[in-house]
């Protein structure tokens, strides 16, 4: 930084294979790497150590704030993000923020957009957000309605694959075989069943809305770029970010970024973008890794390594291959 008044920014090794921000030209650095970042979620919140959602939300909102010259208002579903950011009598939000109930964040966002439209306020932009349970299950109707009307809202789903706030129960975004409190690794079909669940980014794309993307907290540049791109569109937009959850996944807090990266490199979390119903781009896997590298760091998948469950491991490999084929990941 050339400005002598600017503070020193600490950089951390992210666990990715990218070169650090410090080696890039200032204009190419991430929003998070700048002192001008808005700190939409400020420090002092109560997220667990290693929480992927806290990172994802902070990254996404700060990027959206920069893209809109700090003109974001947000609707939030009930869930971890809501709970850990507003422990009475504190708030971690430095942006205008409203939490209503679990299943209506998209509709509340639509209402905000309607109010801005009525006022002729074209500067203020709306983000609605929630976890995967609040998005793919209980909030699905409201989300689909928001897409249908093409309301001017960016919806961001922080997907950690389950209801972590209520004690790690299965959601429709829980991956097959994963252990949750309601899909225990017991019986003939341990963990969450295969042939169940939904991949909401593809469903969002089917609504033919202006923009859909998946993102990962391990690739900050890609995540910020997608959020900024989303803010360049008007109408309904959707981003689903894979956010590892140490509590729910049974993983080390220090492995959050690594797990997010391995999910992508194993093919289990495809990174792609789409516009108006068509996939427009996907991120090639640079160093493809076996799914085991991703699975073995998580206790929720421990049972798939038992000799009697090797068919499950094979089925997970098949899911990765399907993603690789469908989204052209290699």
């Amino acid at each position, binding site marked *: 930084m050339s400005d002598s008044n600017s503070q020193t920014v600490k950089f951390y090794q992210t666990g990715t294979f990218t070169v650090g921000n410090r080696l890039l030209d200032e204009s190419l650095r991430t929003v998070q790497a700048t002192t001008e970042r808005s700190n939409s979620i400020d420090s002092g919140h109560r997220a667990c150590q290693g929480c992927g959602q806290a990172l994802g939300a902070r990254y996404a909102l700060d990027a959206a704030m920069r893209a809109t010259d700090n003109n974001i208002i947000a609707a939030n579903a009930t869930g971890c993000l809501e709970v850990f950011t507003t422990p009475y009598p504190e708030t971690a939000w430095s942006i205008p923020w409203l*939490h209503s*109930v679990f299943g*209506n964040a998209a*509709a509340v966002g639509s*209402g905000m957009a309607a*109010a801005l439209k*009525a*006022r002729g306020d074209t500067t203020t932009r709306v983000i609605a957000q929630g976890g995967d349970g609040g998005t793919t299950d209980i909030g699905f109707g409201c989300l689909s309605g928001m897409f249908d009307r093409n309301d001017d809202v960016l919806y961001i789903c922080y997907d950690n694959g389950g209801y972590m706030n209520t004690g790690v129960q299965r959601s429709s975004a829980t991956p097959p075989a994963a252990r949750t409190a309601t899909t225990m690794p017991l019986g003939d079909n341990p963990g969450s069943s295969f042939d169940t669940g939904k991949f909401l980014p593809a469903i969002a794309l089917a609504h033919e809305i202006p923009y859909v993307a998946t993102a990962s907290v391990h690739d900050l540049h890609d995540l910020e770029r997608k959020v900024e791109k989303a803010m360049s569109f008007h109408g309904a937009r959707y981003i689903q970010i894979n956010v590892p959850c140490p509590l729910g996944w049974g993983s080390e807090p220090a492995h959050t970024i690594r797990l997010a990266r391995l999910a992508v490199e194993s093919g289990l979390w495809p990174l792609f973008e789409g516009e108006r119903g068509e996939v427009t781009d996907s991120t090639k896997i640079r160093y493809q890794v076996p799914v085991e590298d991703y699975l073995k760091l998580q206790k929720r998948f421990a049972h798939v390594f038992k000799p009697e469950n090797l068919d499950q491991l094979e089925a997970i490999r098949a899911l990765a291959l399907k993603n690789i084929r469908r989204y052209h990941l290699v």
Partner: protein
Amino acid sequence: MLQQISGSIAVAEAIALCRPEVIPCYPITPQTHIVEHLSELIKSGQLKGCTYENVESEFASLSLCIGSSGAGARTYTATASQGLLFMMEAVYNASGLSLPIVMTLGNRAIGAPINIWNDHSDAMSARDAGWIQLFVESNQQAVDVHIQAFRLAEALSLPVMVNMDGFILTHAVTRIDIPNQQQVDGFLPPLVPRQQLDVRAPITIGAMVGPDAFTEVRYLAHHAQKQALAVIEQQAAEFEQIFGRDSGGLVKYYGNENAEIVFVAMGSVIGSLREMQRQTAEEGIDFGILSLRSFRPFPAQVISLALGKAKSAIVFEKSFAVGMGGVLTSEVHMATEANDLKIHSVIGGLGGRSITIKSLRKLLDAALKNELPNETFMDLDTATVEREIERQQDQASGPVAENILRDVGVVSASKTH
């Protein structure tokens, strides 16, 4: 301007005069004509500066209202019956967040059995939800009270539900005086929100509150409703000054204030009671009518005072708490603890059953002879009920509704299983 229009169209015209900024809607009988007409007013350009949203459910409808009101816009919607139940989580949330939303409830029964006709079960399902709940007797009152509802909601930062009887009022075509824009603007100033999502002054709305302060937040909601008791009366008086019409404050009393028998009721049944009052007056029979215009806040003191001279109150309600009895009855009991008053509960008009003056007269005659029971289900077909109770001796007696319909000859008797 005097117009010959239906209650729904009249309400839509009144809403438009209130300059709403956002109207999300989802169709449900019998309120649909209200939002249809508002859509027309917006599409045709007659109502400007208002965003209309066709949403996918009532839950979404009120959720949009929450977002819009949180963003500082004057917001309106309408629903009924199942729609109110479907949005109930948002109903409690809107009042918990103190958002000044106005919603019309075209009162309708709740299923099962599914029934589209009028009663007050829907309104009663929201009686503890923290909304101001007003009832209107006529379509002129519906117009007048909706205009007051916005000012009341915004003065107290509380949501207001205006209850008008489905079909009986919503679909009835009557002569209505629709005020002009100047009058409404003179009564209803632009919204100044208590809280507003604004990028220039960020706030957090809807934070989590634990045991340390939850009681205080809830008490403040109760306090706001108590404040409403005075504000409703003040605004009704001011409305009368500007518009020249008495639309009622917390309650309206019809008849001799010294009457020994007083009917207590809400909504359009007041019209039938007043007609009976006119008829019995010719016979020299006297009774009073206490019309509750405000159900929430519940004007307990005003009710106690209004029933101060009465010896017997007949509380007529179009809903009841199954397993308990009349809700309004028990609340009137509570309000009149200090009165020397015998209270009779009458449940009638359920699921749209006609409330005839003949049936009302039977109640009055029984009361005059001191023979009215504590609880009456008006016009109950006891033979049909007893037949079904008898049938239920058989463990697998089948669906109640279909059995009864067959008994009364609606479902083909030839149907075999």
